């Protein structure tokens, strides 16, 4: 579903000069898989996800989604992506239904498919009570459900989620976790970044540990446990970033 080759991105910093935020990343993620990007703050997770979502252009390397190149055909790629972050905002003066219509239209859907899909999402996510109320009148949980519906309106086969549970209460973050699992059940490819170890351990089929813009280790939780000899993911993570990806023993 999603492949990257030697994906690289620099930023210019006034004090520090050129910074390599993403440094030669190779990924290969499949449909029906939850792929986790685990890293500290500043490890390059957000930049990587923005490159995958075509929000940023890579300095070098390639991203392909379902065979389409992200640099030469960004709009084709975007049509296949649903993107959500923990801090994603909504248009406060519109209603959830209007937001769904807007993003449906932008994705090139026709009026009847937008209506059908909106009704379906509103029902599935329990948004019936507030679908026609302005977003600025909604609770944070209702807003988050609206954001999920917005991400799914065009039924994208690839979901890119950047720290989607950041700052949410237990009930709302559980709704997000359920939504991620459901998406996998529907055969979507989910790429998820997080710095919360137990969230990654609970959800992800495969994990890449990212540090200073590079992937230190990639595999299943079982692979990591066998390789590093630790049971706890926190210990594995520390070992991975301390020892340049090599086992500490």
């Amino acid at each position, binding site marked *: 579903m999603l492949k990257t080759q030697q994906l690289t991105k620099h930023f*210019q910093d006034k004090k520090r000069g050129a910074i390599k935020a993403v440094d030669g990343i190779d990924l290969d993620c499949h449909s029906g898989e939850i792929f986790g990007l685990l890293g500290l703050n500043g490890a390059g997770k957000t930049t990587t996800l*923005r490159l995958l*979502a*075509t*929000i*940023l*252009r890579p300095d070098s390397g390639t991203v392909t989604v379902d065979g389409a190149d992200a640099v030469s055909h*960004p*709009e*084709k790629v*975007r*049509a296949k*992506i649903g*993107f959500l*972050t923990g*801090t*994603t*905002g*909504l*248009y*406060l*003066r*519109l209603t959830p239904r*209007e937001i769904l219509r*807007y*993003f449906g*239209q*932008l*994705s*090139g859907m026709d009026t009847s498919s937008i209506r059908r899909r909106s009704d379906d999402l509103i029902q599935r996510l329990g948004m019936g009570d507030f679908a026609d109320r*302005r977003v600025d009148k909604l609770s944070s949980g209702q807003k988050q459900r609206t954001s999920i519906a*917005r991400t799914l309106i065009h039924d994208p086969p690839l979901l890119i989620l950047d720290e989607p549970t950041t700052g949410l209460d237990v009930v709302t973050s559980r709704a997000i976790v359920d939504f991620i699992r459901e998406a996998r059940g529907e055969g979507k490819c989910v790429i998820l970044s997080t710095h919360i170890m137990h969230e990654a351990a609970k959800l992800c089929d495969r994990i890449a540990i990212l540090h200073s813009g590079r992937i230190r280790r990639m595999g299943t939780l079982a692979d990591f446990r066998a390789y590093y000899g630790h049971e706890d993911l926190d210990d594995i993570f520390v070992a991975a970033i301390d020892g340049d990806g090599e086992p500490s023993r």
Partner: protein
Amino acid sequence: MSGTLIIFFKELKDILRDRRTIISMVLVPMLFYPIMSIGLGSLISSQVEKTRAERQPIMILPSHAEPGLMVSLAADTSLRLVPSDSILKLLLQQAENDTTLDKTLIRRIFSSLPSAIPDSIKQPIYYAAVAQKWIRAVAELPESLPSSAGPDSVIVGVYTDQAEIKSDAAGDHIRERMRTVNDSLTDRRLAPFGVSQRSLRPFWIGSADIAPKSKQAGRFLAILLPYMLMILTFTGGMYPALDITAGEKERNTLETLLVAPVSRWQIALGKFLTVMTAGFVTMLLATASMTFSMKWGAMQFSDQGAQSLPMGMSGTAVGWILLLMIPTSTLFSSLLVVVSISARSYKEAQSYATPLLMMIILPAMVSFVPGIELNWSLAFVPVVNLSLALKDVILGVEKPLQILLVFAATAVYASFMLFVTARIFQRESVLFRT
């Protein structure tokens, strides 16, 4: 529907639900001018009426002035004579606490002939009485009138505080009354010789305004309207521009739009069109409301009705204005979008937009300056060219080639800014400035 139009209609719906936009785009232009011209106009005219109807207290000096003149002032129903003795008393009391007033000088003015005392001495004392509102004006009359005019002519002095409307009105009444007395005295002296004042004048001075009707009508609008048109187009688009660019960044919705399958230039164009529409609508609403309230105000408050202050504009002038305003609003809207998308937050965008507004206000004011006219080189100076071209168009001056050049030059600047707008939405360093 194309991505640009989808974004345009959504942004339009969004900003129309924003109270700030409604206030700046609809309410201010629709209410400001009627309130200003009708409300303020009626307040001023009612104050003027009230002042005219009141009898203004005045003092005559010296107390033994020429009786005929004193009687004629006393007979004036808009004036009320206050005895100089009572003012003298009040001034002497005032001098107890006010060191700038000299009692000796006050007594001297009231006891001798004041016309012999220099202005520098008596004016502060008159002013003290007028400032206390005991009297509104001082009339200095001669003790007697000379039997022949010429070098023996005497002066009637009228002292008022012209910053005070009531004092000014009292002065007008005194002067008018004295002029009448002067004329009738002159006529009486000429009568034995069988001549009148009229027959003594070799010529009269006549004057006529030969400007065509359209130019006469547009004179007032020509000064104000070019400036107003430009400022309103800019300010009308300002809040929407800040809201849909810097505001979108601040509310973290920009990323969701960037991941939608539309190109960056479609996003830029959709937002630009929204800002341009808001500016254009504000300009149209304000111009309509201003023209209407001026016409209405002129009918209500001018003596001869609307005819004396015609505000009409020819259809050709309106056509030219609309034609010129298209590149103008394109230029301003793209400038606004570029400046506000470059900001990190709504607040930062506001601090960029204000100096930008100043940069437009100053050159736009050129229409206020008499004598500066559109020429082949000024036609290339942004904003200045528009201000002058709009002025010409309203006055109905025939310079179609120069005005077309202004249109073309502005269109070139606007296209360049539109190109910059489209480009800036491609720049990651601008979209993700933190």
